[in-house]
């Protein structure tokens, strides 16, 4: 490999993507380049043909970003979030949660942290070009996990009675805890 066009492209991949992914894409580009060299093209022509065949950096890095596991996990959490939220809303309203012995500061803190986590997930879920942004899920995911555990624990400790609707909300949170705990270790490696 000696073409400046190819090495610039490979540098661009490394700037835009995590090292392991950039290496994989670079291998593909170099393979394409070698294929054109082997079929008789000169270095310059082979490099141009390889880049044309491979797709431009924006397209390729964008495709890796759109298929990033962090982005998919964020979308999954955002898609299911309203269901879990609605279960809790119903349980809290029916259980008259404003009468439970939970400090106002704890309520406000919970809401603020939840809002921040949802915003971070929204950024990760909608990232079109920045792979870095899809990794926000690895930060927001554990927060969601802790919030779910907190919600279930707080309800268990302070709710005056265990109703069916409260049980449903807790089950929804437990299901999400299971999903998050299963997904996060897989994101950490990517």
């Amino acid at each position: 490999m000696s073409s400046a066009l190819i090495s610039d492209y490979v540098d661009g991949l490394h700037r835009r993507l995590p090292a392991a992914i950039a290496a994989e894409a670079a291998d593909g580009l170099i393979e394409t380049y070698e294929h054109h060299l082997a079929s008789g093209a000169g270095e310059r022509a082979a490099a141009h043909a390889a880049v044309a065949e491979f797709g431009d950096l924006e397209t390729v890095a964008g495709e890796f970003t759109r298929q990033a596991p962090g982005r998919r996990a964020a979308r999954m959490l955002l898609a299911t979030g309203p269901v879990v939220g609605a279960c809790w809303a119903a349980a809290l309203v029916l259980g008259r949660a404003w009468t439970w012995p939970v400090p106002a500061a704890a309520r406000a803190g919970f809401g603020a942290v939840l809002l921040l986590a949802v915003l971070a997930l929204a950024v990760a879920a909608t990232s079109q070009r920045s792979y870095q942004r899809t990794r926000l899920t690895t930060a927001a995911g554990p927060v969601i996990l802790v919030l779910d555990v907190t919600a279930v624990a707080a309800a268990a400790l302070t709710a005056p009675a265990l109703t069916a609707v409260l049980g449903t909300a807790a089950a929804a949170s437990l299901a999400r805890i299971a999903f998050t705990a299963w997904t996060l270790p897989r994101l950490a490696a990517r």
Partner: protein
Amino acid sequence: MRTEAQVLKGHLDTLLLASLADGPRHGYAVKEALRTSSGARFDLPTGTIYPALRRLEAAGLVRGTWSEAGGRRRRTYELTPAGHQRLSRDRAAWRDFAAAVSAILEPAL
């Protein structure tokens, strides 16, 4: 009406799995297999094959391994047992679907 490229994208996973059915291949060979098997009709930008392969790898359907060849590291992709299973399921589903569509579009004369 969806364009052929969009329809193709919907089936890309299955097509990639099928192109690995005969054994391990490099990414470029996967792309060439798609192109030649389809009579040059499915000519995807090579660079978009890799994100898809990576996603299939994350899903446990494909395994990628680095090996040293010709003085540089190259990545080879192969189906996992789960990938083989998924491919046969997809094949059966496609046969049923194609048969149903053909029955409607090309009724026996």
